[in-house]
């Protein structure tokens, strides 16, 4: 987004124009404004959550185990007397960190591969396409399980596995977005004025392909969070005392049939809210970065 605004006359004017556009998009669609508020809330919880929570998320208390939600413990306490609210808030950072890193890796590698494939065609396109087809030939969550099992049961490997199963979406999208613009008027103009291929790709075609990719990023972020939580739900990656939504739901699952619903409900709701926010945000982002709507 900053690269788009920075090519204005002065950086300050660019920032001001961006903010005005942001305000316009927010007031235009209340749903986007709502999603944006939720997004700020989640990012805020990830950044400063650990300092705001009332209890230590790891502190056990044998005196108050499995307490239902109350004024002392908003989301109740778990089987070891830990405060569920504190754990849910603190977990935001880890869950978000996994999803953001995975999507960032997938975006950078996937869109580069896809852009090269779409721009040059031929063998580059065929080889990338074949590799992406092979990834897509697996049920994606199952492939992620296999990768984590083979590479080792760590949080980093959860990130890599999630990045790999997200790769094809970006590669395919970048390929089509670049391929339709390969011979557009502005590209030919740039080529005639003596720009190198990589320059045209990076500064002419790629920024124009960004809006649809932004939507994809936002949708994928939700999906990445779901996948990472799913992997930790089945016991991969995150090691138990660490607060993380998937593992908290998994631990709470053992207490559902005895009626202690709050253990699984609140981390599950937090997970749902995060995914929901990113899905809603997808369409809002499209309005924000679409160069054709910016006048």
């Amino acid at each position: 987004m900053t690269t788009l605004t920075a090519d204005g006359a002065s950086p300050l004017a660019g920032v001001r124009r961006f903010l005005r556009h942001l305000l316009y998009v927010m007031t235009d669609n209340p749903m986007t404004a709502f999603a944006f508020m939720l997004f700020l809330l989640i990012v805020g919880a990830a950044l400063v959550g650990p300092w705001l929570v009332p209890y230590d998320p790891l502190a056990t208390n044998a005196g108050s185990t499995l307490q239902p939600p109350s004024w002392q413990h908003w989301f109740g306490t778990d089987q070891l007397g830990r405060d569920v609210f504190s754990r849910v808030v603190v977990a935001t950072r880890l869950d978000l960190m996994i999803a953001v890193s995975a999507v960032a890796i997938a975006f950078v590698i996937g869109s580069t591969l896809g852009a090269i494939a779409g721009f040059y065609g031929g063998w580059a396109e065929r080889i990338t396409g074949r590799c992406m087809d092979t990834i897509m030939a697996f049920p994606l969550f199952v492939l992620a399980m296999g990768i984590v099992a083979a590479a080792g049961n760590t949080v980093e490997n959860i990130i890599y596995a999630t990045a790999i199963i997200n790769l094809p979406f970006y590669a395919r999208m970048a390929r089509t977005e670049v391929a339709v613009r390969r011979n557009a008027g502005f590209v030919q103009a740039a080529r005639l004025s003596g720009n190198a291929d990589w320059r045209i790709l990076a500064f002419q075609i790629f920024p124009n392909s960004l809006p649809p990719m932004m939507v994809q990023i936002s949708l994928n972020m939700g999906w990445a969070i779901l996948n990472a939580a799913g992997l930790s739900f089945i016991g991969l990656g995150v090691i138990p005392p660490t607060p993380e939504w998937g593992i908290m739901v998994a631990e709470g699952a053992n207490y559902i049939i005895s009626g202690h619903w709050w253990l699984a409900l609140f981390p599950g709701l937090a997970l749902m809210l995060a995914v929901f926010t990113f899905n809603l945000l997808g369409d809002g982002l499209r309005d924000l970065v679409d160069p054709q709507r910016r006048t």
Partner: protein
Amino acid sequence: MTHLARSRLVGWRLLQAIPVIVGIIIVSFLLTRALPGDPAAYFAGPAADAASIEQIRVSMGLDRPLPVQFVAYVQDLVRGDLGISISTGQPVMHELTTRLPASLELTGVALLFSIAIAMPLGILAATRPNSWVDHLCRAVVTAGVSLPTFFTGLALIYVFYYLLGWSPSPMGRLDFLHLSPPKVTGFYVIDALLARDLETARAALAQLLLPAITLGLFTLAPIARMTRAAMLQILEGEFIRTARAAGLPRRQVLFTYALRNAILPVITTLGMVFSFALGANVLVEKVFSWPGIGSYAVEALVVSDYAAVQGFVLTMALLFVTLNLIIDVIYTLVDPRLGLEE
């Protein structure tokens, strides 16, 4: 003539699956050789000394170059040998084949459930834009993509087992009061019906209902969204306007003309839906202690039983390719445009 063209198309599609299967086998070979640390040391066990590790390495062929190992791997696959599961001591192939029907039963019923709900919902939403059905459809679609499957499953267990008591305890395919029916298809409900054991069939169905609904809710969203979008687009078409102007009954316009064309993009999305369903299947099986291949893989993961996990990944991938092939063949058979072009 058209018949020949169609079978040629189907044959061409089958040929196209070959490079995909080769890719899958290469990836799963790489996964088995990318084990953390030394696979030979792992398979030799914690008590092994250097000599016995070396012996295992030679007997497993791990000292040979990778291409040779790959050939051996493919030969094993052709013989149906996926290795021995360390946790149970059984061949992985045997474990997977005995557990596969449970997974197929669950996924199949879930998909039938979600198609039965999602397609009418999508059609109704498309024919009545901005009505309550349309809003309901949008709500279902938005909620459906945000819901973690394992969370939906737990919520359903809490409501229907703990609060209402309508559902049997979420533990496997049959409670301990019933014996599993004699094996014919491996699907308990069908087997029990074949054995004319209505009581067992009812019990098996009761166990199946909640996990199938959980999985079905997850796949509902993409099918409903695609049906709605495809129907909306088709209903705009000029041939629909012509059919309406010619005075054809509404029902005929909707089902004979619109739906037959709208079903094509829906069938194409089914491929993606299967990918999600097979992945979510693992989570649902864990939540409901369903004895399918998904929960087998999860148990194997916990005890680092790699042969079992890799066998599971390979089985799932081959299952997925087969399902995609079936979808494509169905697509070829129902596409009304294909017959006309010849």
